[in-house]
């Protein structure tokens, strides 16, 4: 039955509604074709698992930490001895000279150095001095492991002070403390646990690579739709180029968040990776995906062929992945490449995750990093939307 008498004045959907409809369609098709599940969930998990197995379970890469004892008292020697025994999982080299330790860190003979400051023992009975960390910015994870160890030692200052007091109390002759070889406090520093806490990098790296590779999915879809005629139909209805750009970005965002959450959940629950506080991790992952969704809009608007979409996507993925350290558990290049790499979205997100890790800081302290990710996403989206207007406007 044909009914045309009810001709109505159609109302254009809002740009946001049109964008949501477009995004929902992309997600539905991605899920239905299983491409989303394969490329965004299974891929990162399998690659992460392979890397985890290569590094020995989920323990992650081992940090080599030097300890510098500038205090040179029985108490500090005892702390060094305890660390030496308990850091057995990662080789510990003892350095007596701070300059030597710094050189070793710079030359990457060791990944980081823990420094027991002069006056440490005496400070235990008043305001304990913190252990200091010498770190190489291009080796973020070992630096954070050393910081976490320093935090663990500081948190056990009471035990160290108690051990020192006991020795002094038992020996009524009160010999000079320097005559006592070492005073071993009953502290525990589980280096394996601390290193395992940062093993999330093994899954985060592959996740970012696959998220980058997913950037081109929207571009490939648009090219395909252009070729198959559905784009012409979409453009012939009341859908603006900006709505097209927004829909594409939202689709990438939703797929990216789903993939990130899946990798986070499975790597944590099944493989025992410890990423940190769930809320903080989710906030970082969402900020990263916002950033990448914005970048995807540029590729989507600029790529005119599937080959272009593929090429630019791969270039993004491998360039950002390599210089941003996603391939090497957070390790970055030295020199200018390292500096540039440290500003890639994946490196910034990695830094935020590491800083939020065990013994690390709270969410407020990484807000600048998160804001940077979101700003990159918003600016990139604005550029992409403008390119879309120039292409279709």
């Amino acid at each position, binding site marked *: *039955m*044909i*009914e*045309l*008498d*009810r*001709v*109505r*004045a*159609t*109302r*254009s*959907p809002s740009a946001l*509604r*049109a964008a949501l*409809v*477009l995004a929902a*369609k992309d997600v*539905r*098709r991605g899920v*239905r*074709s299983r491409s989303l599940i394969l490329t965004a969930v299974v891929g990162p998990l399998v690659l992460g698992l392979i890397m985890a197995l290569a590094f020995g379970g989920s323990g992650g890469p081992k940090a080599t930490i030097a300890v510098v004892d500038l205090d040179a008292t029985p108490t500090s020697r005892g702390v060094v001895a305890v660390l030496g025994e308990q850091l057995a999982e990662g080789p510990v080299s003892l350095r007596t000279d701070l300059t030597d330790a710094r050189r070793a860190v710079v030359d990457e003979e060791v990944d980081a150095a823990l420094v027991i400051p002069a006056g440490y023992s005496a400070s235990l009975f008043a305001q304990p001095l913190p252990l200091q960390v010498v770190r190489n910015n291009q080796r973020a994870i070992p630096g954070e492991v050393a910081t976490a160890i320093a935090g663990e030692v500081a948190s056990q200052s009471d035990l160290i002070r108690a051990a020192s007091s006991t020795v002094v109390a038992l020996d009524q002759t009160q010999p000079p403390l320097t005559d006592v070889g070492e005073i071993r406090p009953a502290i525990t520093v589980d280096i394996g646990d601390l290193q395992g806490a940062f093993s999330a990098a093994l899954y985060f790296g592959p996740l970012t690579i696959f998220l980058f590779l997913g950037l081109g999915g929207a571009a490939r879809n648009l090219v395909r739709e252009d070729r*198959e*005629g*559905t784009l*012409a*139909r*979409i*453009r*012939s*209805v*009341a*859908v*603006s*180029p900006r709505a097209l750009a927004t829909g594409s970005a939202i689709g990438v965002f939703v797929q990216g968040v789903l993939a990130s959450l899946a990798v986070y959940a499975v790597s944590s629950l099944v493989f025992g990776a410890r990423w940190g506080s769930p809320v903080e991790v989710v906030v970082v992952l969402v900020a990263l995906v916002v950033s990448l969704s914005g970048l995807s809009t540029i590729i989507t608007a600029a790529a005119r062929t599937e080959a272009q979409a593929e090429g630019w996507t791969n270039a993004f993925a491998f360039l950002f992945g390599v210089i941003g350290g996603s391939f090497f558990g957070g390790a970055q290049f030295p020199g200018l490449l390292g500096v540039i790499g440290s500003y890639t979205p994946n490196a910034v997100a990695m830094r935020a995750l590491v800083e939020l890790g065990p013994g690390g800081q709270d969410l407020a302290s990484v807000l600048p990093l998160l804001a940077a990710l979101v700003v990159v996403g918003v600016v990139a989206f604005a550029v992409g939307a403008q390119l879309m*207007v120039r292409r*279709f*406007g």
Partner: protein
Amino acid sequence: MPTVAASCVGLRKAYGDRLAVADVGFTVHAGESYGLLGPNGAGKTTTISVLCGLLQADAGTVEVGGAPMRTGRCDAKQHLGLVPQDIALYPDLTARENLRFFGRLQGLGRSELRTRVDEVLEIVALEDRAGDRVESFSGGMKRRCNIAAALLHHPQLLVLDEPTVGVDPQSRASILDGIAALQEHGMAVLYTTHYMEEAQRLCDRIGIIDEGRLVAEGTQTELLAAVGQHPVVRLTVDGDPSGLAGALAGDPLVVRTSVGDDRLEVAVTDPARALAPLIERAEHVGTRISGVEVVEPDLESVFLHLTGKALRD
């Protein structure tokens, strides 16, 4: 409702050095069916693309539903429904999912969308296959679903770009019947085709386009008259037809004659009135007629006359 569904004035579009459309202008009135007839590569799809806001013209203006068409703006686009030449549907979605998607983009609300999807599925006779993926459809079913997606929002103007290309005769007939039914219900239709018989059957007025230019426009009768096309009585004779040709000279019903070996073609103003006198005249001059055929002029001959080439060249 405006009396003009769509109008184009002075459209010009070039791709590099190649001029695809040059100074094309036409008007589709409300409820009218307008055909753009021309061979492949004549500029039909480019014209349609500009009219639908998919391409920006280098020059000229387009209005649809009284609103100026601009590629990035939506005002005019909501008045038209485009049926692209390709099957512009998602093969991995069902017919209903496709229609719901395009209906949502058209701004239809939830309940209206449900109703309209059911209605257009009924119009194109796909109710029984609504839940099947489009990739499982035959070519004709895909074409029908392709049309359905353009009808969801009750457009004032339905634009069909060669909707029967590659379709089997049965589906083609079904599609043409459906379009004719839409016309009967007052929907304006802009129809591009290189099939002369489709234009003749469906279109109230026809624009003939070739090499990017609109070379003629009017009703079929107007076009035939404008180029001086007349019905032809084709007589097969025993012997020399020259005598009969000479005898017909000066007959007011005869426009011209053309003599062949055993054939005489007589262009006449009215074959019904001219046939009996022709036969009488043949008997009078002793020419025996062994065969008579009346050939009505068609758009093919108009196109041939206007462009010097056949429509399907």
